């Protein structure tokens, strides 16, 4: 329980006043010479059960009445179900809003969403608490935004829903930075969230640092989590993937893979999935029996006159969460499969050139073999991937490669003949190792990345590849395949997207990658496919900070369809024109699949801090904080009435006293 005037609680020892008066009264006894001792002795011998109970009940009720008066004067506030916590009026209140699509869920059809409920309840509560400053923190990059009054939280545009996932560690870090630099005195952090794992990132290493930082703050900081973790009943999400434009003769058609998913095991459900492309709608029924149903390679014929570039939307009927009922996609004629090969070893270069040049479909694959000095003249803008065998780039070369990575290109580094001390994205080659007997990969990741299993589920035959010698790797790496002893064979750089290292070369003296060509072919073609996703006139993007940065870099970020106009470019779902490209922005895939983080896990994240969790429900009309002094006054009155009733002589005793005091009149 929190009090608006906690200093009044100093008077709580007055609760003992009735007891003290009783004890003083006991000491102030009178002495009386008494004749009828035999009745006193008899009274002492009689059972004292009820009298003693009544006596103590009266005492307890008097103490309760005093306590109720003191507590009422302290202006108590109820939080949730009268959760117990210390605190009073905060100097600053920072509202951290989880605005992710999952917060758009409603409890009942047509009801208020979790985010709207949270904003309203927080506005009411902070108005009651009369916090000195109220700040809203919804974007870690922008930091907290001060509002004139708590009621503005409901209306604030930057507190509205977005399609991007939230980053709670980053938001808390931003809140910490603000408190450290600005806020003085008691600060309350109000987090409004549904505890989804993709928003909270409980495994993120930053949590420990954030917790320690808050604990070391000189100000008193209380963290209040307004949790709406209850799942949205019957909610189904739709998502499209692998959208490609195919041309068959003179006809064009769009091939789309659609997945509908839900987080609970409901019964059989037939969903009409609606496609809207260029103003023309088509629909197809998808039957959902488990948690997910996939409509693979659904073909949508396009008009012959239709442009090669366009966008569309796939949607399902409204349910408990409107934010995951639409998915936007953009399409364009597939770009050429151009890749760049830089190799100091001609043998390795030939192999890489050959592998990159064989496209998996009928598309033309172009490979530019770039000499070491000709990087500046390479067709960077048209290339999807760069295969580099040689010392890591430095200087101008490094800048070019970084720029290529920055626009979404993929780079695969193969081991150089003579490793140097050069570093790239925090990684460096070390010495070669040549085992007496050729080694094979001991383990590799089959679930994702370049060495993942095939779509049919078959593993790549990496175990058949002989590694005759391997080059050491150091730096921030995520191993994708490891040699015996744990040395990485294939690894991904953790500091930058799209950088992969292979600790050997396709040259026959180093490995049998060329001879056992399947693994090398899959690795190279998958890297090219990844790079192609950012080429061409259409691309998919997840709403969030990265897309927002791209939108800013774009210069012109024009809405084509979907979301309403907003100042938060890149955070809302829709189709946008970025220069001559179409970008379909949607919620991240984790928003559809992530489960709530367990309460115990959340508690552990805030261990050592003043933390309280209040469970809310979407559409809940009650305020989470309200003054309850009236309840205490009523309790005091009830206690006094009960005390009065108990203090009254019992009717039988009163009659008896009346009879015995006037026997003659009674007899008459």
């Amino acid at each position, binding site marked *: 329980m929190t009090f608006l005037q906690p200093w009044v609680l100093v008077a709580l020892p007055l609760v003992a006043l009735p007891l003290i008066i009783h004890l003083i*009264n*006991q000491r*102030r*006894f*009178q*002495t*009386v*010479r*008494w*004749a*009828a*001792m*035999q*009745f*006193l*002795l*008899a*009274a*002492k011998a*009689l059972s*004292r059960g009820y*009298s*003693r109970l009544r*006596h103590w009940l009266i005492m307890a009720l008097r103490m309760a009445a005093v306590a109720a008066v003191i507590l009422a004067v302290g202006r108590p506030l109820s939080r949730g179900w009268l959760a117990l916590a210390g605190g009073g009026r905060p100097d600053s209140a920072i509202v951290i809003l989880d605005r992710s699509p999952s917060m758009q869920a409603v409890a009942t059809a047509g009801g208020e969403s979790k985010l709207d409920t949270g904003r309203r309840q927080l506005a009411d509560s902070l108005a009651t608490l009369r916090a000195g400053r109220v700040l809203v923190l919804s974007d870690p990059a922008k930091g907290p935004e001060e509002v004139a009054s708590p009621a503005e939280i409901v209306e604030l545009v930057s507190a509205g829903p977005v399609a991007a996932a939230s980053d709670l560690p980053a938001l808390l870090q931003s809140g910490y930075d603000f408190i450290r630099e600005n806020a003085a005195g008691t600060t309350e952090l109000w987090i409004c969230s549904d505890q989804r794992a993709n928003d909270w990132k409980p495994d993120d290493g930053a949590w420990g640092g954030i917790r320690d930082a808050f604990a070391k703050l000189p100000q008193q900081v209380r963290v209040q989590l307004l949790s709406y973790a209850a799942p949205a009943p019957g909610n189904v999400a739709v998502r499209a993937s692998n959208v490609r434009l195919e041309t068959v003769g003179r006809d064009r058609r769009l091939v789309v893979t659609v997945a509908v998913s839900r987080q609970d095991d409901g019964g059989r459900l037939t969903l009409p999935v609606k496609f809207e492309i260029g103003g023309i709608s088509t629909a197809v029924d998808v039957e959902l029996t488990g948690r997910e149903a996939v409509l693979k390679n659904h073909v949508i014929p396009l008009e012959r006159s239709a442009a090669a570039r366009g966008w569309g939307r796939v949607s399902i009927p409204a349910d408990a969460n409107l934010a995951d009922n639409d998915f936007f996609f953009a399409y364009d004629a597939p770009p050429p499969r151009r890749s760049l090969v830089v190799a100091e070893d001609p043998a390795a270069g030939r192999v890489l050139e050959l592998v990159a040049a064989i496209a998996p479909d009928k598309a033309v694959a172009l490979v530019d073999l770039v000499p070491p000095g000709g990087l500046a003249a390479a067709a960077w803008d048209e290339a999807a991937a760069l295969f580099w065998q040689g010392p890591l780039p430095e200087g101008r070369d490094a800048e070019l490669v970084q720029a290529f990575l920055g626009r979404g290109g993929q780079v695969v580094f193969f081991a150089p003949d003579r490793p140097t001390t050069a570093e790239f994205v925090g990684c460096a080659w070390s010495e070669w190792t040549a085992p007496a007997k050729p080694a094979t990969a001991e383990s590799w990741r089959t679930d994702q990345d370049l060495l993942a299993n095939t779509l049919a589920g078959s593993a790549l035959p990496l175990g058949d590849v002989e590694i005759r010698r391997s080059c050491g790797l150091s730096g921030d790496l995520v191993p994708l395949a490891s040699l015996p002893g744990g040395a990485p064979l294939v690894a991904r750089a953790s500091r930058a997207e799209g950088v992969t290292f292979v600790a050997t070369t396709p040259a026959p003296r180093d490995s049998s990658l060329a001879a056992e060509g399947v693994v090398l072919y899959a690795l190279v073609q998958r890297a090219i496919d990844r790079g192609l996703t950012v080429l061409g006139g259409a691309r998919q993007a997840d709403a969030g900070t990265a897309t927002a940065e791209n939108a800013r870099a774009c210069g012109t970020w024009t809405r084509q369809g979907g979301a309403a106009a907003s100042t938060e470019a890149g955070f809302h779902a829709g189709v946008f024109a970025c220069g001559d490209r179409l970008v379909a922005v949607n919620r991240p895939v984790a928003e559809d699949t992530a489960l709530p983080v367990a309460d115990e896990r959340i508690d552990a994240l805030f261990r050592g801090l003043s933390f309280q969790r209040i469970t809310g429900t979407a559409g809940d009309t009650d305020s989470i904080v309200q003054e309850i002094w009236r309840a205490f006054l009523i309790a005091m009155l009830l206690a006094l009435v009960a005390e009065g009733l108990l203090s009254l*002589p*019992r009717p039988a*005793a009163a009659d*008896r*006293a009346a*009879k*015995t*005091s*006037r*026997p*003659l009149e009674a007899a008459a």
Partner: protein
Amino acid sequence: MFTDRQPRSFLDPAVLARLAAVPLLARRPMVGTVSGRHASPHRGSSVEFAEYRKYVPGDDLRRLDWRAFGRSDRHYVKEYEADTNLRLCLVLDTSGSMEFTSGGVTKIEYARRICGALGYLASQQGDAVGITCVAGGIVRTLPPRRSPAHLRLVFDVLEEAKPAGPTRLPEVLHEIAETTRQRAVVAIVSDLFCEPETLATAFSHLRFRRHDVAAFHLLDPQELAFQFQRPTRFLDMEGGGAIFADPIDITDRYHRAMEAYLANLRRVVLESAVDYHRVVTDQPYEQVLARFLVGRAAGRGLR
């Protein structure tokens, strides 16, 4: 009669004058030594006809009813009721508890007034008056006598009675029953703070001896109401120990104990045919005595 002494504090001439209008009568025949106004178990020479009896040689010929002889040709002797005097034995409780008062008159003072008035009324109608002061035993006793000088002695005893010591009323009543050979009116003035069962045997003993027992049960208003506001240490006025009690805690049970005691006592006096009067000391004693006398006058004629 008070010319040679100071007026007694417990006697109010006005009250006595008003009470003298109602005679003090016994509820059962008395065996007196002289003629009086009380019924006797024997035939006597009063004007009230009793019965006819066959003449036997030796009877006084003056009592022969010649009219009856003329009608029946048989000799009958006409008998009349005998009126005699009574013995009034006042039993005054002088135990320590009789000194109690909650602000008004003490119980002993109240008892003096009752005893003094009864003694005076009895003496005025020619009855013998005696007194026995009772505490742990018989403290002082005067046998019943008819003379006014004896009444003065009785008043002296009343005046000098000092409450002290425990109550052994039942034992003393047994002793009185044994020692008072002739029928008497035994008027007990006490707070009766002893077990009703022990009193029952004493009352039965007196009844067996054909005594007319009357009991004035004196109670202080505070003893009935037990209205205390503060924790109190109660000192026993009869020399027992002290008891510390919180009135909030004990009042209810005190009332229950008092109620049980009074109910038992009522049963005992009903079974023993005791003329019982519960008296609260804030009531006028004149009213109590008037009720007592009138009640007895209503039962006149019993022989």
